[in-house]
């Protein structure tokens, strides 16, 4: 990754860090996850708070 480029700018090629709970614990950013868990994370849907959501 290049942090600084020649024209005095910052962030070239630097991605966002995405932290998710893998199972009971966290791990660093998601690029360390195995393929199956990545697929599982992609499929997660949010749960609504009303009783009949």
């Amino acid at each position, binding site marked *: 990754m290049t*942090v*600084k*480029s020649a024209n*005095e*700018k*910052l*962030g*070239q*090629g*630097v*991605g*966002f*860090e*995405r*932290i*998710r*709970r*893998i*199972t*009971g*614990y*966290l*791990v*660093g950013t998601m*690029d*360390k*996850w*195995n*393929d*199956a*868990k990545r*697929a*599982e994370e992609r*499929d*997660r*849907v*949010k*749960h*609504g*708070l*009303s*009783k*009949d*959501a």
Partner: protein
Amino acid sequence: MIQSIIKRDGRVVLYDQNKIAAAILKALEACGEGDAADAARVANDVQGELESRFHQDAPNIEAIQDTVEKQLMEHGFNAAAKAYILYRANRTRAREANTALMKTIDEITNIDARASDMKRDNANIDGNTAMGSMLQIGAAGAKAYNEMYLLRPEHAKAYREGDIHIHDFDFYSLTTTCCQIDILKLFHGGFSTGHGYLREPQSIQSYAALAAIAIQSNQNDQHGGQSIPNFDYAMAEGVAKTYRKAFSRRLRDAVEDYLDLEDQEEQIASVIREAEEATGETAKLESKPEFLEALAQGLVRQYAVELSLAKKLVRRASIRSAHKTDRDTKQAMEGLVHNLNTMHSRAGAQTPFSSINYGTDTSPEGRMAIRNILLALEAGLGHGETCIFPIHIFKVKEGVNYNEGDPNYDLFRLSMRVSAKRLFPNYTFLDTPFNLQYYVPGRPETEVATMGCRTRVMGNVYDPTRQIAYSRGNLSFTSINLPRLAIESHGDEKLFYEKLQAVLDLVAQQMLDRFEIQASKHIYNFPFLMGQGIWLDSDKLTMQDDLREVLKHGTLSIGFIGLAETLTSLYGGHHGTSEEIQKKGLQIVGFMRDFCDRKSQELKMNFTLLATPAEGLAGRFIRMDKKRYGKIPGVTDREYYTNSFHIPVWQPISAYDKIRLEAPYHALCNAGHISYVELDGDTARNVEAFEAVVRCMHDFGVGYGSINHPVDRDPICGYVGIIGDVCPRCGRHEGEQIPFERVDELRRLYPEMPAFQGIE
């Protein structure tokens, strides 16, 4: 005449009939079927047959071995022939394992972890570093050896083919999983890490530092995650020591300043000592009035000052020491969090996999520790990064912290604000009936605590007088591929239960075999865990004793994965789709729990049922099942099996229903369980909404739960929160650059922004 033979690797070597005779003799002797003379006769005939087939050509090894098999049978040595065939099959398997091992090591050595799913099997090990790779190579070698030499053939087959998964198989012959470390017991009188002796800590900073060292040391004796069950109770002791020291210093300063004196250390010490002796109390965050009164009287006697002035000096000292103690505690808790995210363990390949449990100590010192560890977690690491370790577990208890008016309700509220930002703490519920049955007020060791991914150890059939969380842990666990049993039962429920019974028996036997290996170890194999008396009753062992009896305080856990897919295969839908199928789900899990309970009573050992965490396992079983059975809708058509008893992650369902449906499984899975609710970021940031979910878990009888929500961070501007396509703080897209003037502008607004050494 046979002159030479061709070996497997292609080399040509001299033919030696004695070698053939020796192999035949081994097979004969193994079955008690013949002697050296018989072996020589068979070997002669083998040579005869080879000469008639090959003439002057060199036969290869396989052809020679085929001929030996045939001649053994022709001579009527049937058992020996069978033994010889088995021996050959085993050797072939060993050779194949060797080749596979070399291929694995090749992948570990040469392939970037980003391109190798195998190297990302456990996300906590960085497979790209030297030490991480060495650990993975060691694990691969140990696994190959264990499968070849330690497993019974039927267990090896079930493991290899994915009927079961033996967790931490690389450590099969070496150690056990995890332990709840009672650090108070450890600290009292000091302890040795195995590399040096540490005196009993005397301040909150040392308590926090040694807590991290205890976790790190134990991590090298066991393969799982390590945990502190009494974090608040233990840190409270450190807070109290820091306060006492601070108070004596502050009182001296106050007296010296006000009365314009020097070197009053001894005099003040004796005033404090007299007050302590007179009242049986000490200086504390909330000192007893009679102690403060006695101190003031002591100052009057020592310095001949007015009582009102003496009281003022005591009050100033109290207030200043409380501030100083709070500052020290804050620093100590920040230090602990930093340490546990940066310390090395296991040859540098990991940071310690650690958990801390807290929330129920209502003493002022305990509360100060809890508040500051939560604030440290909320602040994050140096650049605002979310801390990965330790796992924080907040113990929820009615009358202690659950309801408004409870002494620690404010800390429960604070914990939710923090969890809504940082994903931790998780919540464990002590009022849930299966946890409440062990709870004795005033005895923190009876409060359920969790460790690592979700492990819970409380009941104890081996020693029913010790049903406690402290000093115990899991010995090993093996998980069952539940969906495969269903697929192979083709909707036949009775057949499914027969298959399930058979695999439960197989797993129990396999774990008992593993226990035999573990039980034969000694204290010196575990210099910290056993040598320092961390594990229950290990302080009663001598160097000669094996670990059999003390290990029986631990648990042998049978796990499972994919209840949802199992139900879909058997009944056409998962337990989130109908109450009928939910009943079927509870029956299946109840069946496994009954098995564990019966086995426990029969052997007086703790067999427990685990809702398997399934990080590496999420994909392993389904990959094999997809190959075997093809894509079955709702069963094998995704890349993962659903975690334990969870409602599938893709199922639209309300938080309320998800909790209601999953809670009853918590009661059944006594080795460990967890439920998650997924909230969108805005809902999670709303503490009322967050609390509603936690209370729902409490009321439905969940044992352990946590709330998931997105936590993103832009490493350039340091923004932490939800980032869609564009960072809400600096406005850049992923991978995009921003001008330096903009960086400087942002830094004025957000002084905590990361600094980029050497380029700014």
